């Protein structure tokens, strides 16, 4: 049987070879769906270590991107043995890079960390119009909306998106978090968001606080 603690630590260490050899060995042993679910959870716990090390400035953004890549590889390898066993989602987030902005690296980092933490993430992609956010919120009724952007024009688009949520009568049904290079406390207030972050791990903690 796979040693889940070793796996968790290997994910925390971003040790690709150890992670993949442990998981390949596990998958080859023809495990049950329940066991596979425990392996997924062990990987998720490893991602929490990665998040902590990022907050302590041991890891940086490049390491988070690599971690997201490793996690995707690991989950894809486990999928065939997961069977129908689904995990309980802790909450749902609609996320996108706002209108006029094509930058998606920060959004993707946050997305993979939120998924690893058990959120259902609906990623609308880049250059997302206020109406596209509104439509998705109507459709999936998430608890949280995450808006991302790198350019200063993103601030204006974020504001327009919050206005559109207000006009659709949806603003009070969701928490709004904004993230990316140009956001700060003043921008957050002006946009009418509930929270802001320039740090994916910190943003995830905010979201976890909202759904706990």
């Amino acid at each position, binding site marked *: 049987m796979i040693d889940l603690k070793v796996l968790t630590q290997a994910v925390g260490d971003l040790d690709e070879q150890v992670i993949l050899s442990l998981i390949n060995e596990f998958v080859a042993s023809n495990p049950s769906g329940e066991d596979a679910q425990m392996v997924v959870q062990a990987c998720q716990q490893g991602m929490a270590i990665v998040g902590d090390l990022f907050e302590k400035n041991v890891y*940086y953004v*490049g390491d988070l991107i690599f971690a997201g890549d490793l996690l995707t590889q690991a989950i894809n390898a486990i999928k065939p043995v997961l069977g129908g066993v689904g995990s309980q989602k802790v909450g749902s987030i609609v996320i996108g890079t706002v209108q006029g*902005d094509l930058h*998606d690296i920060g959004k993707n980092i946050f997305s993979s960390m939120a998924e690893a933490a058990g959120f259902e993430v609906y990623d609308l992609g880049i250059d997302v119009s206020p109406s596209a956010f509104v439509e998705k919120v109507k459709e999936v009724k998430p608890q949280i909306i995450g808006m991302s952007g790198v350019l*200063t024009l993103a*601030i204006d688009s974020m504001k327009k998106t919050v206005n559109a949520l207000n006009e659709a009568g949806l603003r009070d049904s969701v928490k709004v978090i904004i993230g990316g290079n140009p956001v*700060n406390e003043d921008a957050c207030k002006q946009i009418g968001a509930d929270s802001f972050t320039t740090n994916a791990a910190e943003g995830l903690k905010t979201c976890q606080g909202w759904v706990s």
Partner: protein
Amino acid sequence: MTDAVAMTNERNQMFSDLFSGKTPKRVPVSNPATQDFAIQYAGLDLAECQWDLTKLEPVYDKFCQDFFTDTYPGGSIRLPSHYQILGSTPIVMSSSGFMQHPDVVGMLAEEYDEFIASPYDCIVETILPRLFTELNGAPGKVAMALAKAMRAQSDDLAYLGTIRAKMNAKYGFATMSAALTEAPFDFMADFLRSFKGISGDVRRHPDKIAAACEAVLPLMIKKGTLPNPSMLGYTFIPLHMAPYLRDKDFLTLYWPTFKKMVETLAGMGQTVQLFVEQDWMRYIDYLYELPENTIMRFEYGDAKVVKEKLGKKHIISGFYPVTLLQTGTKQQCVDKAKELLDILAPGGRYWWQADKSIINLEANGPVVENLRAVLEYVHENGAY
């Protein structure tokens, strides 16, 4: 007209003094707003004007007249015509009309050895056809696409150059030239391996990144060389990836070839301007090692610490937060300008620029008034 010529001479003298480490007459000022902003300020459509440059002369005239600046506020501009003709994927226009750079892969991880053996051949034969769809096909078609694109670009640049010359003649801006290049590691990340790709490479094959940076260094130096190194101007190097790396990866993969590049350019007698993007405070002692009078425009960080550590050797710029212009009152914006002036101006070696470019103008927002007030404030209070 003579007044404008005199102003140009005076401003050229200010920048000559600044770049050679002498205290200029006053703190030089550059408007951080760009052509994109200017088009919106004139009430015109951003996408349309970038396709039809004939609309731009009155746009620039109003822009230059209404906002104080010592340098022509053209900024670095990505023109859509030649990118479109080439089928560009690394530089594209968004729905807002702003040209930008998505995360693309121009080179696969397994192509490092080919690249290291001959970067130029690999770029021409393998990477360009992947990044630009019209450069991937029969040689005749590729030749036609390339010829059309280069003609379109040269026509566009000539047209913008004419506008620039007219504005310089009318408003007496400093006449500086600029070349653009990237640190080898940033070039590998931004156009060849992508942010995601290089982040994996740092873990999986760091030796190959180091060798690739060494291999591409001569091309990056060539790209950053001015036609005449002694002319008034600078090589602009926007720095990208260092804040996203661990210190040890920065030290072994990013820093060696970047440092060599800046030293080589400075050794040729040119000034180098770094856009120190994101937060470089943990690398400040490395920055100190760069040649005297290297210009460093900072985005984030502690202005006091930077002035103290680098301010006697290098030329400091940036730090002014343009988002404040969007969210603050006029008084708050001016107070911030004063605060930075008080920290950075004493002893010279300070060029007023903002932390980022202003590319967007929200109708009815406070940016126009705030920006104008800040530029005037620094102009009027920056005398030595």
